[in-house]
């Protein structure tokens, strides 16, 4: 996210420490140096956020300028001669550090930041071993601002990074500065507590240990953890996250290395929502309903029992219904659909659908390059959000748009049923009830015709024919348009791509023998078997069939499992290897960070069932690598470059370009309407998410 992308393509030549360098005009000296491998120390400067020039660590010597200059505010100029390491500079840096340490406690042994603290590093490099100040240090007790955020004013060096991250990055602006001089400190918006996104961006960006998080506080030290790069398991945005693991327990989630599509962005779910995996309500053993009560049994007994039932229903020509969850990996979904179609010989297979991508693909048939990636959301000149409270439902995409506005002066337009955060920085925000979107769009037509390009993000209120209408309307604008069809969960997109739908095979090939959709299965009165893998379709719904034998693979005994005859304990996405595909069609690798006693991955459970049924040869090996190879080879769009995946990157699946001529049952498409603080079935079992005062949040409120 460089601030220089928009600069004209000429270059400025200058010299740093005797090296000839060049950079586009307008580049800040500190950035230009960093790119050339010359490190200039900085506390307050942070790439991507506004300039502060508060810390004076970045001082450099520039010829013909009488005083030391702050490299973080100085754009490079033609012929400039800069020195970054001289006696005078070292002295200045040492002085700055001495000032910073006047009130700073000697907390390193207990401070959470110890070992990865920028202040420690700087003092180690430039600082003095002792201080000339003999006055008693100012001390203020630590404060807890929310279940997530703690602030220790004594450790704060007032770099204002947190203030800018919250205000500019998150668009929340919950942090400010109070008091003056030596007693100034950071203050939350509600005087003594925070009312905010609880995203922890402030904690993450703090160069010192002034802001700390409740989940990580005093638990471990940075060098004691293993760092596992995986993908957030909550919403569909697919943020990469690096989990800090100690003793088979996840203690921290962040993305400090700024790798992946999201850089260091994470919302509260990605950063703290991992506690679902350690919730003590987790099912840890297979269970069979005996005399109306679920009793723990051995794996072999439960598998044998289910296989027996499946076999007898199959021989009797009974009906199966299979429901998959939106958090399963692509491998699990692919394996499950193969199991269902090839093994159970039915296409009664579905997942809770949250966006009408199928119609979009059909409507875009023949157009190339028409699906936007998350990068497009950051680079586009204009974006239009229809029917989604983006900051609540798709935090990362909203973050991308905010960054786009800050860095590229993009124009954002929103057409939503209620007030949204985007209105604060959008070019135009229109509130219309669901159904009235097209009237609003017609009013925007002339304005949008003046844009150079457009990314349209639309929610579940645009489905069926309305998707076609939208595409037709957008084609009339005469500018390049790309689309994002918003879906709910971490692998909702993958479930569609992998053909977990009654009428589509993997890669959106039409199924010649379509089956029942989720709604049809639930209302089918003589359904014999309902097999639910990682989902909870009976939440707020009833199963019409009284005779149905219900099998669930689940982490918790939710509504569906309460009706189940057999329950298998399944692993959470933090305990799985495989791949997931995000809302913008980028596949990423999921890596197991921890193990939980008793649970098996859904892939393994399906595999063991296949083996028990004698179908293992037909359906294949239940190893995620082997299944991925098959996906890579056979599913349209998934022939992605493997090195990108293996190194933890996000590979764009090549969108299917062609007709997808199926009947889309739009009554089955409905977003769960999660907010920043809810996450469907997962969120219910996260103690942290349910403990923040903002829980459960509301759509169209901020």
């Amino acid at each position: 996210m460089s601030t220089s992308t928009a600069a004209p393509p000429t270059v400025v030549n200058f010299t740093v420490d005797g090296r000839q360098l060049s950079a586009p005009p307008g580049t800040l000296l500190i950035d230009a140096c960093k790119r050339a491998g010359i490190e200039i120390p900085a506390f307050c400067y942070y790439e991507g956020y506004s300039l502060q020039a508060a810390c004076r660590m970045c001082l450099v010597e520039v010829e013909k300028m009488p005083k030391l200059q702050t490299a973080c505010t100085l754009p490079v100029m033609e012929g400039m001669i800069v020195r970054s390491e001289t006696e005078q500079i070292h002295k200045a840096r040492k002085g700055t550090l001495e000032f910073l340490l006047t009130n700073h406690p000697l907390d390193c042994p207990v401070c959470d930041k110890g070992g990865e603290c920028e202040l420690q590093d700087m003092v180690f490099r430039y600082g003095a071993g002792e201080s000339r100040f003999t006055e008693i240090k100012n001390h203020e007790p630590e404060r807890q601002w929310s279940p997530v955020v703690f602030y220790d004013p004594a450790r704060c060096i007032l770099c204002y990074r947190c203030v800018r991250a919250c205000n500019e990055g998150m668009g929340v602006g919950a942090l400010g500065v109070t008091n003056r001089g030596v007693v100034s400190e950071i203050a939350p918006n509600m005087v003594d507590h925070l009312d905010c996104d609880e995203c922890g961006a402030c904690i993450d960006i703090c160069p010192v240990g002034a802001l700390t998080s409740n989940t990580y506080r005093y638990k471990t030290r940075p060098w004691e953890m293993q760092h596992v790069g995986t993908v957030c398991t909550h919403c569909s945005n697919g943020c990469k996250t690096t989990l800090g693991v100690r003793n088979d327990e996840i203690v921290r989630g962040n993305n400090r290395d700024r790798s992946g599509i999201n850089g260091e962005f994470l919302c509260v779910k990605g950063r703290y929502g991992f506690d679902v995996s350690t919730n003590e309500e987790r099912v840890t053993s297979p269970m069979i309903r005996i005399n109306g009560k679920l009793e723990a049994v051995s794996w072999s007994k439960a598998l044998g029992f289910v296989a027996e039932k499946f076999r007898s229903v199959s021989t009797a020509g009974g009906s199966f219904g299979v429901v998959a969850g939106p958090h399963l990996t692509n491998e699990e979904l692919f394996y499950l659909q193969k199991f269902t179609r090839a093994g159970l010989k039915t296409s009664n297979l579905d997942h809770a659908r949250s966006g009408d991508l199928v119609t979009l693909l059909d409507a875009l048939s023949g157009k190339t390059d028409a699906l936007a990636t998350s990068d497009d959301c950051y680079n586009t000149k204009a974006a239009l959000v229809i029917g989604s409270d983006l900051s609540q439902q798709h935090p990362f995409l909203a973050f991308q748009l905010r960054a786009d506005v800050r860095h590229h002066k993009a124009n954002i337009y929103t057409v939503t049923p209620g007030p949204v955060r985007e209105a604060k920085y959008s070019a135009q925000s229109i509130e219309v009830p669901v159904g009235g979107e097209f009237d609003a769009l017609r009013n925007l037509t002339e304005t949008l015709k003046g844009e150079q390009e457009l990314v349209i993000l639309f929610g579940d209120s645009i489905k069926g024919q309305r998707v076609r209408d939208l595409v037709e309307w957008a084609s009339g604008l005469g500018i390049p348009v790309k689309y994002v069809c918003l879906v709910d969960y971490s692998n909702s997109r993958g479930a569609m791509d992998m053909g977990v739908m009654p009428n589509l095979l993997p890669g959106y090939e039409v199924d010649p023998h379509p089956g029942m959709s989720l709604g049809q299965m639930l209302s089918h009165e003589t359904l014999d078997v309902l097999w639910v893998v990682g989902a909870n379709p009976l939440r707020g719904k009833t199963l019409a069939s009284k005779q149905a034998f219900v099998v669930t693979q689940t982490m918790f005994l939710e509504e569906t499992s309460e009706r189940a005859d057999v329950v298998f304990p399944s692993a959470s996405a933090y305990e799985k290897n495989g791949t997931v595909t995000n809302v913008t069609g980028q596949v990423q690798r999921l890596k197991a960070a921890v193990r939980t006693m008793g649970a098996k991955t859904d892939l393994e459970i399906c595999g063991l069932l296949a083996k028990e049924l004698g179908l293992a040869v037909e359906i294949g090996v239940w190893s995620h690598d082997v299944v991925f190879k098959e996906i890579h080879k056979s599913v349209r769009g998934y022939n992605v470059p493997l090195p990108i995946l293996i190194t933890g990157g996000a590979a764009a699946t090549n969108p299917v370009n062609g007709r997808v001529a199926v009947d889309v049952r739009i009554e089955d498409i409905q977003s769960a309407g999660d907010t920043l603080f809810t996450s469907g079935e997962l969120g219910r079992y996260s103690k942290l998410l349910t403990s923040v005062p903002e829980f459960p949040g509301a759509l169209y409120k901020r």
Partner: protein
Amino acid sequence: MALITNILNNAAAVAKGMSVTLVEMLQPTITDAYPEGPAKLEERYRGVHVLQRDENGLEKCVGCFLCAAACPSNCIYIEAAENTEEGRISGGERYASVYNIDYSRCIFCGFCVEACPTDAITHGHKFEIASYNTSTLVYRKEQMLTPLPADFKPLVVKQEAPSAGH
């Protein structure tokens, strides 16, 4: 002739040797009668570690993991937890809820003592820890923590006072 000189030389050598023996016999003993008697250890002897307490009787260890990081044989295992107002264990914000040293691996090098920022870990003089069962060689915090004297009274109780200006 040669024979007599030879004998005399040898006798002289024996006498010289014996004189050393005789002189040493009259010197104070420096070898220990261990294990018949107690072993005498120097002040700086590095034996089984002792975890120290401060003048308030609180544990000095703040669970910073620096000893574990310094340990070349990777034998220190710590779990840290946060002190609360009701349950204060150490003087700092954090304390070690679990502190184990595996003496089947410790090489008594003293690096941990050197690394400790709060002088919480020191070497004691206990050394008779041989065992037929290596699992007994993993010492827990309770085994190493210096006991509180029965008549212990905290010396100072520090109260945090907010500074002026707010």
